């Protein structure tokens, strides 16, 4: 019988893959961001805001930020699985991290779509 616990390890292929896909998304965005932004520096508020008003920038930035949240979840969970052994404490910390990342995600959407 496979013993699975909610905060357990060793059955995380999906997380492993998610970690790598989100990493590639963020790496590509980083390079693209530098290529676009660096030549047009220094930027004033108007240029900056106009850039982010473009739907492609908006959506790709959101994709980057959501990738960061998902990536952080897998990474932080790995750290907890290595160092936090008590079940209750690990579960508590994981819930705190999930809620925090969820709030960050909502914040990211709100701030990008306020432009």
């Amino acid at each position, binding site marked *: 019988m496979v013993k699975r616990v909610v905060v357990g390890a060793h059955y995380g292929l999906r997380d492993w893959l998610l970690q790598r896909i989100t990493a590639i998304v963020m790496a590509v965005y980083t390079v693209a961001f530098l290529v676009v932004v660096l030549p047009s520096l220094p930027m004033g508020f108007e240029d900056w805001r106009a850039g982010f008003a473009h739907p492609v920038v908006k959506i790709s930035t959101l994709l980057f930020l959501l990738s960061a949240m998902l990536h952080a979840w897998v990474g932080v969970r790995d750290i907890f699985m290595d160092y936090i052994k008590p079940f209750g404490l690990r579960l508590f910390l994981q819930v705190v991290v999930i809620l925090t990342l969820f709030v960050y995600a909502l914040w990211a959407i709100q*701030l990008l779509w306020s432009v």
Partner: protein
Amino acid sequence: MAKNRPKNLDLRTIQLPLPGVVSILHRISGALLFLFGIPLLLLVLQQALHSRESFESLRAILTHPLGKLVLLGFAWSFWHHLCAGVRFLLLDIHKGVQIDAARLSSRWVMGVSLFLTLLTGVALW
């Protein structure tokens, strides 16, 4: 099984090999990015996009020496995590798994991430 092979676990005379250093720094930089990087990035983005006043006050904070120092810390965490991450992706597809190649690539990760941090610093000052 031979039990009397020589072993040395004296922490004062042994040290983590460079690939191990890259690995633990990848974890530490990742933790820093979660704890400080993501909230700071969102805060900066919000201030940069909200209004002309918030943009200017953000600029004042980020051009202050203390603000630059924080930014530099973020830059190193980000670049190290990115470079070490690329190395791990290559290891995943079995590129550079031999010991010589793995040691060399870990030197590259340390070097390139420090260089990119330096470039970021130059751009800031």
